């Protein structure tokens, strides 16, 4: 079913954009579309693929990023205090994406200068977050490295970039794989084209990752009516405990 939808999407895009592209001549056009604008998390959610389609008429090198909501993230360092290992130092980073993945077809560093890559948020190493503490560069570095290491271990940052699939000339496709515990929120898909070390075009699309159905209702209820939710859980537990006793003492 997924495959059919993908083919359908490609055809739609071909029909929609190719004639206009021909009419205008080959400009610096970059077109982007998502196979699904929503990723619905239900109780049996176990990860999903996000399929990005697009047309690159720029002739430049292409890069696609998938970035989750940005939040404040704290990295703590353990040290020995009174003989036990406890957290002794903490550095907070602002604007850390909950999730980050990207796709390129050649070495990221060969696309543009490191300043440009940092500005565009392209590549794991290009990402610099503001440390919310006055720290010397060499002091902040181990915390920054730990942040990336932790994100990668959780599969929230990719170890290596995905590749961009050119299916028909200028038509491209990128597949990102979301892990089962992917954070919810609004994600940004950004396609950027580079030529001669400069960004020549950029296009964005938005992806909503959200809990739906029973799971979402529980989440909403637990946050909006937290007292009643707590009471409900306790009643449920009492009921279950009573039921278990009734069931088992019969034997």
């Amino acid at each position, binding site marked *: 079913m997924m495959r059919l939808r993908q083919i359908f999407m490609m055809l739609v895009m071909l029909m929609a954009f190719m004639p206009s592209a021909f009419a205008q001549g080959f400009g610096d056009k970059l077109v982007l579309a998502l196979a699904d604008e929503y990723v619905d998390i239900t109780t049996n959610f176990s*990860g999903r693929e996000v399929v990005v389609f697009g047309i690159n008429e720029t002739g430049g090198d292409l890069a696609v990023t998938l970035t989750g909501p940005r939040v404040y993230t704290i990295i*703590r360092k353990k040290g020995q205090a009174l003989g036990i290992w406890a957290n002794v130092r903490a550095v907070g980073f602002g604007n850390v994406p*909950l999730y980050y993945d990207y796709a390129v077809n050649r070495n990221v560093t060969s696309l543009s200068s490191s300043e440009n890559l940092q500005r565009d948020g392209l590549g794991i190493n290009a990402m610099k977050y503001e440390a919310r503490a006055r720290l010397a560069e060499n002091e902040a570095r181990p*915390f920054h490295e730990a942040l990336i290491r932790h994100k990668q271990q959780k599969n929230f940052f990719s170890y290596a970039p995905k590749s961009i699939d050119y299916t028909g000339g200028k038509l491209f496709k990128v597949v990102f794989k979301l892990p089962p515990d992917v954070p919810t929120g609004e994600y940004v898909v950004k396609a950027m084209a580079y030529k001669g070390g400069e960004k020549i075009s950029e296009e964005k699309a938005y992806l909503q990752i959200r809990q739906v159905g029973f799971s979402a209702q*529980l989440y909403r209820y637990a946050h909006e009516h937290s*007292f009643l939710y707590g009471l409900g859980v306790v009643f449920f537990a009492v009921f279950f*405990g009573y039921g278990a006793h009734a069931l*088992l003492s019969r034997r």
Partner: protein
Amino acid sequence: MHVYLPIAEMSISVEAILTLGLCVGFLSGFFGVGGGFLTTPFLMFLGVPPAIAVGTQTSQLVASSVTGVLGHWKNKNVDLKVAGVMLGGGVFGSIIGVFIFKMLQALGQIDVAIRLLYVFLLGTIGTLMLIETTASYWKKKKTGDNAAGEEKPGLMERMKAEMRKWPYKVRFPVSKLHISVFVPVGIGFIGGMLASILGIGGGFLLVPAMIYFLGMPATLVAGTCLFQIIFTTGFASIMHATANQTVDVVLASLLIIGGVVGAQIGVRASRYVSGSRARIFLAVLILGVSLVLAAQLLMAPKELYSMEVRL
């Protein structure tokens, strides 16, 4: 098979949680303890954030305590007055506990604090139990020998004597006690604090305290303690849900289901093992858990850095 936990916002293996519930249920059936001291560390090991592990565990304890208390209730082994008075302290302890929990969380020391408390409590109780059980085992063998324990009048004896002098004495007719109201209130207070900070019922601490400091008849202790635990854990659960939104009903259900089945297996298995031998097993298990946690605190960790995302 994986299931998505709506409050923890993560996907987790159903088998792992059911197995954990099964093991904890087995312990409660076999030894008559809640087994919460195993659940919280193990959930944390599976990647569940400590706050959600503790919050959710409290609601699972409600279910297992209800199952456990009903048998005692039928045999009229619950002293409602003692339980009620303990509960007064328990509710207060729960509130203070949730507050301390929140504070430690903000300080970023919740993991260390939980581990330290576990090491201290489990280490002390485990050691005392092991000494007591092996001592009685030895006594049986050499009947003529004088017990070494009688040499010291001891801090505990003095504390007990001191408590007899406390004011506001109240009669507890069912347990045939005449004792200061502060003793059961104090025991309940500690139980309530343990429930909200560690996510445990605290039976392993409350039962000896009720026998020793309150001087309750042994037949009434288990039922009364369980009855009281239903309310402190229930209260802690509501507090965690309201103040921190850290009670995951899907995770709780899985733990409860595993626990019910495990408890049945435990009760059956306990028929094949003598009580004193079971107590030695339990002491060794408690000590084992405390040693593992102590090692985590004392040994240099492989990963010095940890991450917390503030949403």
